[in-house]
């Protein structure tokens, strides 16, 4: 009973406690400049997690986001020279389109989303390898600064990435809370049969959820390649696990229906603090994924709605 009441508040309590703990170990950590740069660094992951939230919100999953971002870094690096700013449109369209493909496979051909997105992710990875010739690519620094420089500079002490993140969060929040799409996705996550019996063409909206996930993964990839001034088919590896952790730790369970993009904001910040704390505790980068794996399992076990699962296979 009390656990039920506390549960929705667990994410931000966790965030505060973790931040305070790291702050006690190293008071420098709590300096605004440090916190801001920490937040700025996590933005690509945040954008990816934001999109992933939609897939998980309906009770599905999108495992293609990391490969999608990889592929986009390659596409952005190659076509920046010829397309200029239009490369952003190409990237987002590619993400949206491939997300639609995942959605089509899931809703129309009834392939479970963890398989359909895994397959689409495989396709993305392969496209990245093929386009790049399996090499790391560089952007022309001057052109990058001219076209996308606004993404990565600073305004005062605030990293510009944060404005982009805030804008996307506001857009996603609007979709979730105020649009038919958001309402239907909630109904699908909480009780799909009832949504169907209300005469809603559920499949269309589910496809859109995967498309949004793909599009945001593409934006994450684009930002990442701009930050690094280049791209490679494996450059974003290591994003998938933290992104899923961010969504689940934030309080959107794998079973869907509750939580949302604001939760993912908190979840991503938790991931950021965990990462930073590992730095202070001297945990090597190669060991980080171990911890994220453990946190993921813990988060799933805590958040999942077991009443919706009759058996797990």
């Amino acid at each position: 009973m009390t656990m039920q009441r506390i549960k929705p508040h667990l994410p931000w309590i966790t965030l505060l406690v973790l931040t305070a703990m790291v702050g006690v170990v190293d008071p420098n950590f709590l300096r605004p400049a440090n916190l801001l740069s920490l937040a700025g660094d996590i933005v690509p992951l945040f954008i990816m997690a934001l999109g992933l939230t939609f897939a998980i919100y309906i009770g599905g999953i999108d495992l293609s986001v990391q490969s999608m971002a990889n592929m986009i870094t390659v596409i952005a690096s190659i076509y920046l020279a010829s397309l200029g700013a239009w490369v952003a449109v190409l990237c987002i369209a590619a993400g949206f389109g491939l997300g639609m493909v995942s959605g089509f496979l899931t809703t129309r051909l009834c392939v479970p989303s963890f398989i359909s997105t895994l397959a689409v992710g495989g396709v993305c990875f392969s496209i990245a390898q093929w386009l790049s010739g399996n090499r790391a690519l560089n952007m022309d620094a001057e052109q990058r600064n001219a076209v996308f420089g606004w993404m990565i500079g600073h305004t005062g002490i605030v990293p510009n990435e944060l404005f982009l993140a805030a804008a996307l969060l506001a857009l996603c929040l609007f979709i979730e809370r105020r649009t038919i799409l958001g309402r239907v996705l909630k109904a699908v996550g909480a009780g799909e049969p009832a949504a169907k019996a209300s005469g809603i063409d559920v499949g269309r909206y589910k496809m859109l959820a995967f498309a949004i996930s793909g599009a945001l993964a593409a934006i994450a990839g684009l930002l990442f390649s701009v930050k690094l001034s280049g791209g490679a088919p494996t450059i974003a590896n290591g994003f998938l696990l933290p992104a899923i952790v961010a969504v689940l730790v934030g309080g959107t369970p794998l079973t869907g229906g509750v939580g949302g993009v604001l939760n993912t904001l908190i979840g991503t910040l938790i991931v950021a603090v965990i990462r930073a704390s590992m730095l202070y505790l001297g945990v090597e980068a190669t060991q980080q994924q171990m911890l994220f794996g453990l946190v993921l399992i813990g988060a799933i076990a805590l958040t999942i709605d077991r009443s919706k699962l009759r058996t797990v296979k």
Partner: protein
Amino acid sequence: MYQLSSVDKKFPGVHALKSIDFHIKRGEIVGLVGENGAGKSTLMKVIYGAYQPDGGQILIDGKPVHFANPRQAMKRGIGMVFQEQSLIPNLTVMENIFLGYEAQFTRLGVVNWKAMAAAAKKQLAKVKLEIDPATVTSALSFAQRQLVELAKVLTLEERIEGDLVILLDEPTSVLSEEEVKLLFKLVRELTSRASFIFVSHRMDEVMALSDRIYVMKDGQVMDVVAKADADASAIQHKMVGRHVDREYYREQRQKPYDASRTLFEMRDIVLPGRPHKLDLALHPGEVLCLVGTEGSGREAILRTIYGMLAPVSGRFEMKGQELRNFNPRRSVAMGVGYVPRERKVEGIVSGMNVYENITLSQLGRYSRAGVIDVAREKALARDWIRKLSIKAHSEFADCGNLSGGNQQKVVLSKWRSGGSDIMLLDHPTRGLDIGAKEDVYDMIRDMSDDGVGIVLVADTLEEAIGLSHTIVVLKDGAIRQRFDCRPGAKPSLYDLLHHMI
């Protein structure tokens, strides 16, 4: 033989059982009736060991016993035949019967199937079921599965010493009249082997089968009635604390429907897998009731009207327009509303609040360019909470936490607020207590007054007769008979049964 002495059970906020005294004699059939929430299922769970009482004693042959779980209760001869069947569909009948007790047929971990089949055959003979024990369970009819379940419980006879008490939880809810008769005959014969506790919503069945009837209300035993003294209306009076009279179905509010206009008309409609042609029409203000046993084709007709099933041939006109493609979206747009049987699965979305549920079928009407006007939604919800006196603390209440009757009101307001004038009601009163049922009956009459046409699949035949203007009796997918049901000139149960079976 088996006895409960002032048993108490409390849950947070609920005193579920209040000092219950209960006993059953060897070979006796005891009925247990009460409204939803009266404490029947809690009492049963105490009896078969799923719950432990907070106070009082369980006595077997006068000696106190304690069950930590159902398995321990089984060792003392208490068996349960579940309403939601516990058989595993892809196992064979014999595997199901001896599930968890295979050791007696195994040597070095290898099962002797012949021995198991022979033993299973013996158990099946007890319930007079002549099937091959190697049949896969999913191939059996529902009634057969129920008997297998009973046979499974009867294996206790060989396994334990002492007497058996078998609980039957709503065993008749999905059986046809004929199957019910067979089951009752069997149970009476089996009283030489066991005592039975029989729980059912259907008063007539409880009265027909039981030697004594325990009437429960609010966690207490209100009365124990012997078969000879049983009187349906007296028992119902004790269950609800008031009389359930002939006004129950609101017959006095039944007005003639408008036969000059037609909401939909089916002509020579043939449904997939059924050879028969169906003709059916619905008029404004009419309650059209589809009557038949499970599998007689009632659901298929509802699903066709709702657009989930496309007919193979025939002509389907809705509001003067011939339908060519069938999908729920089109039906909803044409004013069809659907109150499904599985209220918690298809009716409401639990986890969403009242206004989100009410507008789910009409989001287009409460939005502009895909953006929802939440203020209007809330106003609408408040309006309907008041109109149907839905018991919810506000329009923000999670529908999953409402009681069954109030959930049904939310589903009805979803369609009514959208202006649906063809309502499909599939068992709209299933699982509701009597007060909530009466609310639903009132709402049906209100809808008729407003010129809504209703296609109803009722929970009981009495309900069908009481509510409808027209009854269509179905059997094996064909329309067998139509009855005109003017108040005062309604067909009897017998008239309907005659055509159903």
